[in-house]
């Protein structure tokens, strides 16, 4: 028998007796690998489907758009068909229900979409709409919200339409788009009659082209690109949309793969911890083999083979589970998907998951397994003979380094960015480090200061946390990190919602009316006053673009070397500005001063939002020439303001002094505060009924929408983070089974010396209560740190504790731990006291 064959034979012999235990060790990686393969497969399938259904993403070969009417390119000879759309935000009301809501109105002319189709209910809805007349296609979500149905009436501006169909799907749009701005399609020929296209209305003009078969849209773009960019005309082709959609989903899939990878890492911590116990049990056998003359390499081989085999089985099982699991992912992602996803096995994902599982589980298992090399044969004579300490074994350090490198390599493979890779790896180490130190610290503290005054069951339960072969650290790390992830997501969601809702708690405005024409201002204000509502702000708004900055036009700026160019955002933006000589509550002057414009011919000094000025590199004293409805207006930057944007209020990046824009074409915004949602709804419906062109935003609508969007996003992430919790539970179950024999011995001993069942149950329950609490509280502590950092540095909102949420997470995790511990303890308690003689 050759050496290799002998190693395999011995591994097989050993596995025969240990197999079930080893399978248990490896079970903790199955869920992580399953999550990784599922998300990776789904990502692959989605990318492929985006590719296949690329044209349906856009619905046309080429789309041109601008927020003003514009001259169309002379490409009729290349065009097979074209369609026109005018879209804008406007209130729609349901006269039968007496309710209204802000929507995205889309007036359509032509056969758009050229690829794909509107999915309506009933199916005849689209045909009926295209036959003309006052018929509208309304987003299904909107109908559900107002309990309206096909055939009901919907009023847009001055026109009442019949609802011809509920829109289920529009090419390229997702559930999220529908949540943010539900669409209502109306025929173009009825647009004028609505009276909504007025001066100041924020309207977008879009042209959809279906090109002749042999025409390459990219080629068409090349000829016009420069002119369109100069004229601020946006253009988009199938390739462009495909690339941007593909990129977004690739980013999402990669991000979620990293979340799944954390579950894999947690599983590996479980593997390492279980292998550690396994190795401890094996040390006497290793010493015997050394006595019999087996080299350390061969003995090491016997166990590595078993671990490798288990890693392979675990990874393949995880990969299959993941492949099956991807079939539920469309339901999880339904609100984000722009295309129909067809599910197939992605061998790339299966390969990636299996390879990752085997390698990472083997690497983690090697940390305790390498101990086998250093076992002295003297251990057969003296069982206490030590192995080399971890810190003195260079090979084990090399394995730790290999794990770090693999983690970095894996994250880089997904992120393709070294900075993000370092952040991710750093975060994982920080999180594990915090949990590890906490667990060690608490165990050390209990050992050192466990008060003798505590009752016996409590003392014994606490002492069990640091018993030999305990799994306290690995359980705190795995369950704790899973808890931290779920809890952080809830935390952030609540923080953001709280921040928005907070505005209503103070004496802040909560309702905003816009698109008010100058001649309507007094009437709208009067209507509000009649309802006893205060007019907190009445603000005129003038729209304008930028012609030049510091003497440089957009074209001149683009010709400069890239590093010298100013931000193109300045030139492309349509500024909505107001004028006044004083600051409002949400503003604070940080630099310069507000200089009034007193006499014609005076220099006009404007004020910029400090953050925006810094981002676009605008300095005090810079000259900016605006284009106000075709007329140039030369201004200079006179001051910076710091603006608190987190209020339902009118805030402006650019503020003009009084007397400059008085005669410029403008529209108005009125801001008020309602007492409650009932009053808000009543006022909104009344204003929309009397002034159909006026749009309304109220705080509760914002909160509702935000809640819905955050809920959808966090559901997806939590779904993936759930795998970490499941992994933590699997690690817990495997550790319970591993320690069963030891627990039986302890329990039997205690019963032999007279402990009653009730005491043992109490000890068992308390031990898991402490363990669950320790893991949950460590995870919660980590989530507080993470949520505080995200709130303060990413979202820039004040951090608030969410005691109720934390309490719920703590209770859930601790309960699961106690229940599992109790379930495991039943059999242990049943064991006969005779075992003490037999063992």
């Amino acid at each position, binding site marked *: *028998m*050759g050496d290799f064959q*002998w190693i395999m*034979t*011995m591994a097989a*012999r*050993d596995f*025969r*007796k*240990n197999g079930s235990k080893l399978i248990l060790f490896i079970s903790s990686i199955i869920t992580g690998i399953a999550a990784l393969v599922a998300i990776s497969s789904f990502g692959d399938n989605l990318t492929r489907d985006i590719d296949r259904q690329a044209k349906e993403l856009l619905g046309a070969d080429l789309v041109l758009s601008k927020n003003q009417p514009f001259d169309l390119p002379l490409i009729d000879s290349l065009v097979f068909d074209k369609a026109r759309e005018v879209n804008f935000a406007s209130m729609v009301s349901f006269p039968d229900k007496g309710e209204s809501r802000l929507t995205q109105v889309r007036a359509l002319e032509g056969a758009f979409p050229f690829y794909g189709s509107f999915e309506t209910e009933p199916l005849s809805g689209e045909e009926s709409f295209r036959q003309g007349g006052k018929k509208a296609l309304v987003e299904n979500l909107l109908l559900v919200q107002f309990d309206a149905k096909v055939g009901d009436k919907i009023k847009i501006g001055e026109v009442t339409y019949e609802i011809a169909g509920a829109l289920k799907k529009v090419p390229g749009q997702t559930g999220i788009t529908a949540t943010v701005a539900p669409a209502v399609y109306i025929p173009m020929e009825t647009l004028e009659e609505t009276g909504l296209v007025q001066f100041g209305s924020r309207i977008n003009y879009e042209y959809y082209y279906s090109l002749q078969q042999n025409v390459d849209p990219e080629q068409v773009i090349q000829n016009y690109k420069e002119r369109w960019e100069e004229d601020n005309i946006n253009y988009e082709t199938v390739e462009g949309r495909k690339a941007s959609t593909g990129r977004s989903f690739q980013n999402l899939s990669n991000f979620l793969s990293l979340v799944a990878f954390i579950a894999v890492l947690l599983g590996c911590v479980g593997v390492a911890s279980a292998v550690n116990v396994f190795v401890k049990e094996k040390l*006497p*056998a290793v*010493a*015997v*083999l*050394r*006595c*019999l*003359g*087996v*080299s*350390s*390499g061969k003995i090491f081989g016997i166990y590595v083979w078993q671990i490798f085999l288990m890693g392979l089985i675990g990874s393949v099982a995880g990969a299959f589970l993941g492949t099956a699991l991807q079939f539920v992912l469309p339901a999880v992602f339904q609100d984000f998907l722009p295309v129909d996803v067809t599910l197939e096995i992605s061998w790339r994902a299966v390969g990636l998951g299996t390879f990752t599982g085997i390698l990472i589980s083997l690497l983690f298992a090697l940390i305790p397994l390498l101990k086998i090399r250093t076992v*002295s*044969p*003297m251990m*057969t*004579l*003296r069982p206490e003979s030590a192995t080399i300490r971890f810190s003195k074994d260079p090979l084990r350090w090399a394995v730790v380094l290999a794990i770090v490198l693999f983690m970095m390599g894996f994250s880089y493979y997904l992120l393709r960015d070294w900075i993000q890779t370092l952040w991710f790896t750093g975060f994982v180490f920080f999180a594990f480090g915090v949990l590890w130190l906490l667990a060690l610290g608490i165990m050390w503290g209990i050992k050192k200061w466990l008060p003798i005054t505590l009752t016996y069951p409590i003392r014994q339960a606490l002492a069990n946390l640091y018993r030999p072969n305990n799994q306290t650290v690995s359980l705190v790390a795995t369950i704790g990190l899973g808890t931290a992830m779920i809890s952080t997501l809830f935390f952030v969601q609540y923080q953001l919602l709280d921040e928005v809702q907070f505005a209503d708690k103070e004496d802040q405005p909560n309702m905003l009316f816009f698109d008010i024409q100058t001649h309507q201002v007094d009437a709208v204000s009067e209507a509000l006053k009649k309802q006893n509502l205060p007019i907190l702000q009445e603000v005129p708004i003038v729209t304008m673009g930028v012609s030049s900055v510091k003497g440089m036009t957009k074209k001149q700026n683009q010709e400069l070397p890239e590093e010298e160019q100013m931000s193109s955002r300045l030139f492309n933006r349509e500024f909505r500005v107001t004028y006044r000589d004083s600051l409002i509550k949400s503003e604070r002057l940080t630099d310069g001063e507000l200089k009034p414009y007193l006499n014609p011919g005076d220099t006009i000094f404007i004020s910029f939002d400090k953050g925006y000025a810094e981002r676009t590199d605008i300095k005090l004293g810079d000259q900016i020439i605006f284009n106000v409805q075709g007329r140039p207006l030369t201004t200079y930057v006179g001051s910076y303001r710091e603006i608190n944007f987190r209020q339902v209020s009118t805030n402006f990046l650019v503020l003009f002094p009084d007397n400059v824009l008085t005669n410029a074409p403008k529209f108005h915004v009125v801001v008020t505060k309602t007492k409650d949602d009932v009053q808000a709804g009543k006022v909104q419906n009344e204003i929309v009924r009397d002034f159909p062109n006026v749009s309304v935003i109220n705080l509760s609508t914002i909160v509702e929408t935000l809640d819905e969007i955050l809920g959808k996003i966090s559901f997806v992430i939590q779904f993936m983070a759930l795998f970490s919790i499941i992994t933590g539970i699997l690690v817990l179950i495997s550790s319970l089974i591993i320690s069963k024999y030891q627990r039986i011995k302890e329990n039997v001993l205690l019963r032999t010396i007279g402990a009653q069942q009730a005491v043992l149950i109490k000890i068992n329950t308390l031990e898991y209560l402490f363990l669950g609490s320790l893991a949950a509280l460590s995870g919660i502590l980590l989530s507080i740190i993470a949520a505080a950092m995200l709130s303060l540095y990413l979202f820039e909102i004040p951090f608030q504790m969410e005691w109720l949420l934390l309490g719920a997470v703590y209770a859930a995790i601790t309960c699961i731990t106690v229940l599992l511990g109790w379930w495991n303890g039943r059999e242990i308690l049943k064991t006969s006291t005779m075992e003490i003689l037999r063992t």
Partner: protein
Amino acid sequence: MSILSVQNLTKTYQSGNRKLTVLENVSFEVAPGDTLAIVGPSGSGKTTLLGLCAGLDVSSGGSVSLNGQAMDKLTEDQRAKLRNDSVGFIFQNFQLLPTLTALENVMVPLELKKRKDAKSKALELLEKVGLGDRVTHYPSQLSGGEQQRVSIARAFANEPKILFADEPTGNLDTETGEMIENLIFQLNEEEGTTLILVTHDTELAQRTKQIIHIKGGKLQEVTHG
């Protein structure tokens, strides 16, 4: 020529700042086929001496030469090879591999030697120790005496030149212990093996040709059985 030569053997352990000498300047020689017992009170250094003689541990001073090979010049893996080629062990607590059957436990040293007749030879040895009908049993399914018999069969499997036994009857009742003693001496005689055993049992020690008395890590006297 001796099969085992021990010269000025010393073993010290570092315990914190303290140096602990557990064996000091021990010297003796054993001729091929001889039997020798190491006796002494608990903590006297018997087991340490056995471990050093068998190449399980390395000395702090002096030398051990086993079958003509200086142990201190060999690496751990070279010593393992030497053990597989020339040494057999019997332990107080049997030290069978719990995951292997009785037969497989005996086969291991033969397989390591790449012997094609590993199975038949192991079966033959198990028959010899009276366990022909227990070959497929795992250690946990055997009594103490049976386990020690498997251990003896394993020790003789690789036809060792020297056999080390550490309190071979220490965990057994008197009757079984006697049976095991007889088996060891019988096989030893049949195979012409050198036997070194550590024991508290003076009767057992008396059955060997030479007895080494150790106390406090020092050789007190050498008597003849």
